[in-house]
């Protein structure tokens, strides 16, 4: 890889141990993907929940912080694994909370802003068109690439941290024009309406694409999706397919026309009602007792929070209902009385966490939760591996099921 004099100095350890580790990491990754050089990035966003980082990861962060590491660009964080104001009732332990506290301390001493959100494009600072960024969280990356026209690879926690420290990232994958052209062309016939439909559509396209290096272009959408609809479409696509970028012909900024992204040269693949129904049918459970209802993955926007709160009015839940949102939305939702509406019905709003990143297996076992219901196509995909039997329903049906105590 071609390095500038400043980058060579970093690699030689002349700018401290943290930057030396960071650029060494970036060179290793860059060489695997044949990056010619490093590209400056304007922001970095790190996923670092204590469940995935573990003691080893937290100790690693502390080591960098103790060596004097300090980020050189604005750097923010993905959801936490423990809401420090509400963890014992979920069956989370003091040990988990302490790992979280140590993560806070190490990150803050490096100058990282603890935004704790996977919807930073709705709540913190959306990237610009053409903006090179180093984002973690697949949902953040696919939204930023696709809806905003920014440029990011999936940056795992260590790589996002490396980018925050050096202010750069290896120039490979989606930082290059050639990897942003469409490789698969999907035509849809069913128009999605509620959020879950958008998630199911994303899941089917992700599954059909099936690789980080495939870029779907979608034709046939008759409406411009809202930010929340794009969020569910993208998050599910990334979850099922490891997909980091898609285009919607005539809607997303890099694909004003199909030919802008080379879609006109690709064979058409139809996404049929049968494809969508087949995906939904894997998450059944009608009539069964529901153990927990979860709204998360991605965190809820203030608009989704209001929609959930409206549905909660006048209801009393038989099943626990957990709602995960960012710290920014949480304070707005508290001020607007939205949190109170949800909690008066028996739900609980968690601040700055996301359910699947908060020791989902352990809290499931602690509470005896197996049958989990959500409107998120992403979360029902993930939680099968964590000992749950996930079921998928619309936001309205999730709330109705929580009231009935069984899946309606």
């Amino acid at each position, binding site marked *: 890889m071609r390095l500038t004099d400043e980058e060579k100095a970093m690699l030689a350890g002349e700018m401290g141990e943290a930057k030396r580790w960071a650029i060494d*990491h970036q060179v*290793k*990754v860059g*060489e*695997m*993907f044949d990056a010619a050089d490093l590209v400056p990035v304007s922001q970095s966003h790190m*996923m*670092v*929940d204590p469940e*995935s*980082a*573990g*003691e*080893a*990861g937290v100790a*690693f962060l502390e080591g960098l912080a103790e060596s004097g590491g300090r980020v050189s660009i604005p750097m923010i964080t*993905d959801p936490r694994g423990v809401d420090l104001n509400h963890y014992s009732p979920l069956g989370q332990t003091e040990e988990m909370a302490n790992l979280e506290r140590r993560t806070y301390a190490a990150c803050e001493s490096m100058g990282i802003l603890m935004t704790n959100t996977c919807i930073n494009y709705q709540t913190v600072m959306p990237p610009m068109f053409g903006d090179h960024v180093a984002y*973690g*969280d*697949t949902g953040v990356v696919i939204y930023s690439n696709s809806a905003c026209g920014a440029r990011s*690879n*999936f*940056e*795992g*926690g*260590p*790589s996002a941290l490396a980018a925050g420290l050096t202010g750069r990232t290896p120039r*490979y*994958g989606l930082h290059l024009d050639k990897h942003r052209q469409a490789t698969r062309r999907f035509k849809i016939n069913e128009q999605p309406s509620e959020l879950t439909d958008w998630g199911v559509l994303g899941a089917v396209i992700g599954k059909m694409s*099936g*690789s*980080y*290096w495939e870029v779907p272009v979608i034709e046939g959408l008759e409406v411009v999706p809202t930010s929340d609809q794009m969020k569910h479409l993208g998050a599910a696509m990334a*979850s*099922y*397919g*490891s997909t980091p970028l898609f285009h919607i012909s005539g809607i997303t900024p890099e694909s004003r026309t199909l030919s802008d992204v080379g879609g006109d040269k690709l064979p058409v693949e139809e996404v049929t009602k049968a494809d969508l129904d087949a995906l939904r049918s894997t998450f059944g459970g009608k009539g069964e007792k529901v153990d927990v209802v979860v709204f998360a993955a991605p965190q809820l926007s203030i608009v989704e929070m209001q929609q959930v709160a409206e549905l909660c009015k006048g209801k009393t839940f038989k099943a626990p209902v957990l709602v995960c949102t960012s710290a920014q939305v949480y304070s707005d939702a508290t001020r607007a009385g939205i949190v109170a509406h949800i909690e008066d019905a028996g739900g609980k709003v968690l601040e700055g966490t996301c359910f699947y*990143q908060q020791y989902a*297996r352990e809290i499931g076992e602690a509470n005896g939760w197996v049958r989990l219901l959500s409107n998120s196509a992403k979360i029902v*995909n*993930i939680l*099968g*591996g964590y*000992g749950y039997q996930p079921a998928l329903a619309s936001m309205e049906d999730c709330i109705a099921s929580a009231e009935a105590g069984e899946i309606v």
Partner: protein
Amino acid sequence: MSITLKCHKGIGDKVQGIALVSDDNFSARYDLDRIKGIFSRPAHKLHGESYEKKILVMNTAKGGVASAWMLNEMKSRDIYPQAILFNAANTILAQGAALANLTMCDRFEDGDVTQLIKTGDEVIVDPQAGTVTILNRK
């Protein structure tokens, strides 16, 4: 008495071990019980199989960014695959391998690596040379 496969330059140290092969995909967060060291997602083709000390051979990586931390976390507890070989790695797994110094290679010149290597094969992975040698075949 061996055959050597050529792949792209990878990450990590030269290692030797027994292959566990599937044409399924891989995510440390979605597919594994990392405490027991087994594939735990019921829909996964390796469900119930132990990956400890194995040379995992899979099609591609999928899902979230968490795997980037998890490989390091798995290694710190000494319950981890010795190497992971993919037809196509994604960025997250490569980044995770770089942090953990776990051996990883992808892009095999002779075709689908999940067909070229069979479960039970004894293999040597040399990521710097970009080669994988199957010792028990000719």
